[in-house]
């Protein structure tokens, strides 16, 4: 029993840590896809975010912001992400580009551009390491609760809780406010929205830019909490995992959150389990593929069909049917 608890005390916080960037990014994907724009460019947006997060943090550090620097860095990344997402928005909304193509291009562009800029700024392939960081903390009072305290509230990053809070806010905004209703209507039936006086293109721009902002947050949180610096290898695949979480979660905030935590849990389990007595003789490859196999099994077993927004991947032209 104790052993199991001990394991959970390691795995649960690790799962939450790994899930945080995915969760945030998936929220971004949600805004974009709910407005009817496929966003396979989440990976690129996360790359921009990670870049912005580190560069921003370094910049604020040098301006003397001290330990607040990473927070400003994240905000900087949010901005960068939103601005960068404009590429996707202009191409796929105004220029009616195929949204998948445009997203793929975004990924290429982000990687090329960030590394290019890093070279220009730092004269090398990676940035300096940030020294002001966001650290793990014990949440006062809550961490003293037996069993769940050590599991959920000790040695966690505040960013995780911010992210969880954001999920709730996103849910509220998307399902309870006029903005959310309009956003969803644009993703389901843009023509109907248009006849109701809703500016379809503008809503989609907002959706895509929000996706950039959130993916920027996701990437930067990863960078400032875990990686500590930025290079071409900082974000590899997390954006795709976030996209998977969004679909896995059936395009709902809590669903995506659950899926992200599920991924995080599976990954934490796969790395931690190898340190457990009795499991050391199992070939490592089984642990390495565990998260991915679990996901597939979960999808095939009990999640099944996911209904995307109806107008997803369809450029809107006034008057077309």
């Amino acid at each position, binding site marked *: 029993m104790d052993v199991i608890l001990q394991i959970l005390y390691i795995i649960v916080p690790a799962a939450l840590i790994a899930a945080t960037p995915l969760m945030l990014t998936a929220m971004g994907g949600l805004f974009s896809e709910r407005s009817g724009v496929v966003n396979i460019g989440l990976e690129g947006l996360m790359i921009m975010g990670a870049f912005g997060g580190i560069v921003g943090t370094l910049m604020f550090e040098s301006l003397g912001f001290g330990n607040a620097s990473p927070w400003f860095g994240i905000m900087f990344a949010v901005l960068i992400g939103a601005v960068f997402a404009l590429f996707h928005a202009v191409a796929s909304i105004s220029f009616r580009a195929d949204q998948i193509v445009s997203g793929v291009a975004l990924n290429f562009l982000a990687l090329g551009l960030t590394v290019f800029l890093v070279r220009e700024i730092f004269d090398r392939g990676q940035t300096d390491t940030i020294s002001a960081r966001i650290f793990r903390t014990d949440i006062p009072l809550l961490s003293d609760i037996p069993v769940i305290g050590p599991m959920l509230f000790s040695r966690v990053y505040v960013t995780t809780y911010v992210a969880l809070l954001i999920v709730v806010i996103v849910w509220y905004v998307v399902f309870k406010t006029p903005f959310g209703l309009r956003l969803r209507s644009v993703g389901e039936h843009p023509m109907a929205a248009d006849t*109701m*006086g809703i500016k379809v293109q503008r809503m989609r721009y907002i959706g895509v830019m929000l996706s950039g902002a959130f993916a920027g947050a996701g990437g930067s949180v990863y960078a400032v909490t875990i990686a500590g610096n930025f290079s071409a290898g900082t974000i590899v695949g997390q954006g795709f995992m976030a996209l998977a979480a969004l679909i896995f979660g059936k395009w709902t905030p809590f669903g995506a959150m659950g899926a992200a935590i599920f991924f995080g849990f599976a990954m934490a389990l796969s790395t931690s389990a190898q340190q457990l007595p009795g499991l050391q003789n199992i070939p490592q490859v089984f642990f390495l593929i565990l998260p991915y196999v679990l996901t597939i099994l979960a999808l095939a077993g009990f999640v099944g069909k996911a209904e995307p927004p109806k107008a997803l991947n369809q450029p809107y032209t006034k008057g077309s049917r």
Partner: protein
Amino acid sequence: MDYVIEMNNIRKEFPGIVANDNITLQVKQGEIHALLGENGAGKSTLMNVLFGLYQPERGEIKVRGEKVDITDPNKANDLGIGMVHQHFMLVQNFSVTENIILGSEPTTRGRIDLGKAEKHVQEISDRYGLKVDPKAKIEDISVGMQQRAEILKTLYRGAEILIFDEPTASLTPQEIKELIQIMNNLIDEGKSIILITHKLKEIMQVCDRCTVIRRGVGVGTVDVEGATEDSLAEMMVGREVSFKVDKKPAQPGETVLSIKDLTVEDIRKVDVVNKLSLDVRAGEIMGVAGVDGNGQTELVEALTGLRHSKSGSVFVGGKDISHYKPRKVTETGIGHIPQDRHKHGLVLDFTIGENLLLQTYYQKPFTKTGILNYNLMYEKAEELIKEYDVRTPSSKTMARSLSGGNQQKAIIAREIDRSPELLLAAQPTRGLDVGAIEFIHSKLIEERDKGRGILLVSLELEEVLNVSDRIAVIYEGEIVEIVDADKTNEQELGLLMAGGKKEEGEPTS
């Protein structure tokens, strides 16, 4: 006389086509003004201009005598113009209320106040007699209720001038009757209505004046009082149109389709076809009349293998086909004109040629050892195009770019040409203009006379009455009565369709 709406010399072009050319439309306060024209004449376009969805290239619009520039639907809303579109503009997975309030949501502290909105919707709906369930999801309600939700959308925004673009095309007779009542209520409340419809009878019944357009050009405006259906039709088409379908009496032969105790579930696992039995004989047209939602769709889908039947049997040519897959069904000699031509009937991004062979491409001589001979395919397609008068630039034109009527003709060409013993026609003329309808009806009768059995499922009583030889009335998934077409009338059918009980507004859902 002051007009609420004046559209003067409107011109609207689309790439390669002039949809509206110098059209003038003047609507008086408090009237129901009909807008009439063939498919593609430019009616919807003109109304979309009025509603701010399109910007005209030329011409001016006056609302209540004042020149206005309607740049977007919001502007139209502000001017009190509301539009019920030809294709419903409803978000399927939103509730009725959510659809209605979209764009002008009542809020309390930033949050949508759904409770308040629902109450408001209920109020308006009570006031005009538009029965809806404000909490229901659009995807769960009948077409009639969707229509009413559409109207509520405009009223919620305080529209004074309402545009109805073919509102009756997919309504049942009962629903149409209700809609007409609603329109009269609206007029009594001092509103003005522009009504687009292909059904001349409706125009005669409710409209005050009628403006006719032909191929984008205004033909003129007449008072309905002095006009007849024939005169309107002639004005619209430019030639005389016959409405009465010419047909000799049927000479029925052997039974080609025999349905026995068929039970079918819908997606919600409710039995919507209930131990239904029906025979169709060669050389007759069996009409199926019924209010939408009484199992017609599921019946046809079960017959064609698109849906599993739960129990019972379907015999065609002595074989029980109730568990056949679609391919096997068609090979048994069944043609199927599907109800939804865009969903089932056509691959819109295929050429018209490819679509014309969608059921036979795999057979010889088109396919030999897995290789498909496209040349042969297009040769065959050209033949069909000629024979069935499908108006298309070429057989390699995308199906998407054809007009609805021509798309439908292509489907009919394909299905009839396979020479099936049995033809299942589900609402074959929905939304088509009189010319196209005339053509399709005559084709169906021609096939009957060649000795084929035809099952015609339609929501339009007039069609069922005119084309069928016998009529089976379906109610709650059962055939409640089979009557001879020439021995019945709309009143009797209407009663039967309501289950023999007194008429009710809403079919139970």
